[in-house]
């Protein structure tokens, strides 16, 4: 049954793409939840990771691990740097300009170093094979990727729910000023959120490179899909982000197979539904406008 197999493969592919987007979007939602900053340079973090995988990983598992470690360090450093760059800036418009400016600069550097064409990042040789899935060969790497990203999601959820750091994080998201009144240094929490969010995005790039490889413009693609996921999932929520990511992943794969041109409209409709439902649940806050 070729057609059934095709749907199965596309569905699994949707999960893989969704988990890829989850890993990228969770950092964005963390930064947005803690700092209220929309990091328009977030796609660049992913792209940096993808290029890192292209540079370092050559098919051995060891070097993939090396790329992973490098991604954590690079992401944390770049994230902390971004926090410093955003510290003197107030207002969402200026924050958008700073992150956009950095994104443009980084994109220029990438094009200069790696050229304007797409590059191929190979998965490690052990995972390079295919398994039969519904009569089609399916890359093992993507299945492993789903497992790794799923594990990451569970770990993140447990950290946010049950560790002290997670509790402080949620307290800061709920009321930054009162969190500071308890003695939490807002600057430190924000830098930490930026560093962790940046690491996650670069790691997403390293692991996701064999699925969505490095090329100019990939940063914008990842950014906008991650952004839609943040709106769908609600700021700072791990399960919400996961659900949003899986939905967007399916729309981007199965939806595209069904009706290529209609996929954007399906995402738009999903945004509409979520915003309408959430708008009903949280009536406009009352109080003095001052």
């Amino acid at each position: 049954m070729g057609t059934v197999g095709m749907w199965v493969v596309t569905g699994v592919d949707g999960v893989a793409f969704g988990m890829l987007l989850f890993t990228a979007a969770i950092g964005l939602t963390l930064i947005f939840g803690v700092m209220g900053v929309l990091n328009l340079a977030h796609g660049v973090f992913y792209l940096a990771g993808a290029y890192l995988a292209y540079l370092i990983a050559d098919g051995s598992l060891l070097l993939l691990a090396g790329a992973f470690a490098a991604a954590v360090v690079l992401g944390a450093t770049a994230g902390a740097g971004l926090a410093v760059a955003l510290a003197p800036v107030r207002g969402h418009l200026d924050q958008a300009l700073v992150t956009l400016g950095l994104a443009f600069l980084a994109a220029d550097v990438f094009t200069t170093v790696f050229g304007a064409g797409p590059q191929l990042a190979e998965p490690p040789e052990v995972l390079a094979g295919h398994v039969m899935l519904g009569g089609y060969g399916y890359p093992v790497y993507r299945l492993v990727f789903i497992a790794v990203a799923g594990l990451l999601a569970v770990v993140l959820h447990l950290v946010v729910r049950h560790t002290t750091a997670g509790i402080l994080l949620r307290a800061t998201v709920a009321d930054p000023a009162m969190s500071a009144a308890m003695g939490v240094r807002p600057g430190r929490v924000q830098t930490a959120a930026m560093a962790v969010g940046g690491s996650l995005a670069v790691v997403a790039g390293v692991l996701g490179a064999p699925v969505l490889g490095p090329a100019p413009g990939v940063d914008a693609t990842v950014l906008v899909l991650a952004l839609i996921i943040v709106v769908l999932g609600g700021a700072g929520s791990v399960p919400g982000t996961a659900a949003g990511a899986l939905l967007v992943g399916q729309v981007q794969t199965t939806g595209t197979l069904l009706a290529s041109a209609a996929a954007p409209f399906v995402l738009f409709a999903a945004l509409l539904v979520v915003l309408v439902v959430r708008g009903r649940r949280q009536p406009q806050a009352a109080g003095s406008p001052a």
Partner: protein
Amino acid sequence: MTDLLHLDQVSRRYGGLNALHPIDLHIPQGRRHGIIGPNGAGKSTLLHLIAGTIRPSSGRILLHGTDITSHTPDRRARRGIGRTWQHPAVFPRLTVADNIALALPSRSCFTAPFGTDPAPAQTESVLARFGLADLAGLRAGALSYGQQRLLELALATAGRPRLLLLDEPSAGLGPDDIRQLADTLGQLPTDVTIICVDHDLDLIWQLCDTVTVLDHGRHLTTGTPAQVRAHNGARAAYLQPTTTPADRSPEADRPESAPGSRTGGVSVAGLTAGYHGHPVVHDLDLDIPAGGIHALLGRNGAGKSTTLAALAGHLPPAAGTAVTIGGKPVPLGRPACAAAAGIGYVPQGRRLFGPLTVAEHLTAATAARQTTHGHPWRTDEVLDLFPTLHDRLATPAGRLSGGEQQMLALARALLAHPRLLLLDEPTEGLAPAIVAQLAGTIHRLAGAGVSVLLAEHRIPFAVQAADQCSVLAHGTIAMTATPAELATAGQRQQLGHLLGIHHTLGSLA
């Protein structure tokens, strides 16, 4: 004759808190209706319900017999409801004339695009009526506070509303301004119905022909000013201590304090702070010994909350402000630094982390602790202090009752080991029994060496809880006295004058 406004069993709940129990009110046209009551009585909630900025949990609101319960605020405004806010809500970037143009009765957006002003003649007449003509070309944000309040009133009345809602119109105004305000309001056409919420009872007695008293979200009484002044329940809401003075034996309540914890009093010198460059508090000095409890009294807008917020680091203080605890200077303007220096803050409305559970609040407060100087409260000690929290550890803060929320806010502040605890309106929204319990708790904290500064509207509670009371008026300390001194007739009269309730207090004497 049908009523202009009829509140038919209207109520409002917030989570576990009953902000307003079902209330039934009939207000005929032309009535000047005052609404009074202590903080947290539900007065502002009532105004919001009528204006449509919040929806009732139950009941109906009828304007001229039409059910407007489901109408949006703008639809209600088009039906003739005008309002003011406690802080002037003007358009700061627009000129005064444009502010008024926006308030004039709606004309279509798409007509007369070529005129410079939509209705210059009308705008000018409104400006002239409020004495704002000379300021027409200025941006509203550049006006003084008093001028902004005047403009706010002009905005609210320019559309010729049938019903005018005034939320604390006297807040932040001096005595002369308040007299002028009363005159301006008195000159409004007699068919305009006014509902006025204010803490300045003099203004209420002068302006209103009917007064409703609320307390803890309950309707106590409605009647003429004379009837209300004679009403026992109303007087009790403002004046009677929630427990008898005989209950107060602070020394007995206070356990032996650890040696050394009594050294380390708080000194505030020259505190000047405010919002957007407008100082609300001027050059304020305070000294609180370790274990002392100091209450700040004063009308709305007198600067109580501003003082506390500035000490907690939430407002940037002006140059010249110096705060020390135990002789060590406290860095100002940063909440985390204030917390590290030993300042604990329980703001008005508690500001808990809504989705976090009680246990998570306690964990977060312990983990975030920066200071090592104060009394080392442990989580189990704090839970002993507030036993109700024990059974609620897994409950999200948003679902606690008002009293439990206050306890949790105190617990959160204590786990930071503060040497100075700032309590802003701690009794707001609490039932009388809980208020009495709270006074005892504050005494126990002071007994452990914590200095307490509380901002309070309820004189009886302040008198009961504190060992020193200061009255703020227009951002400065107008008098300081011990509770015992306040009991003398002379002090009482002065207090009444400062708080604008001397008629009520006088009738009690």
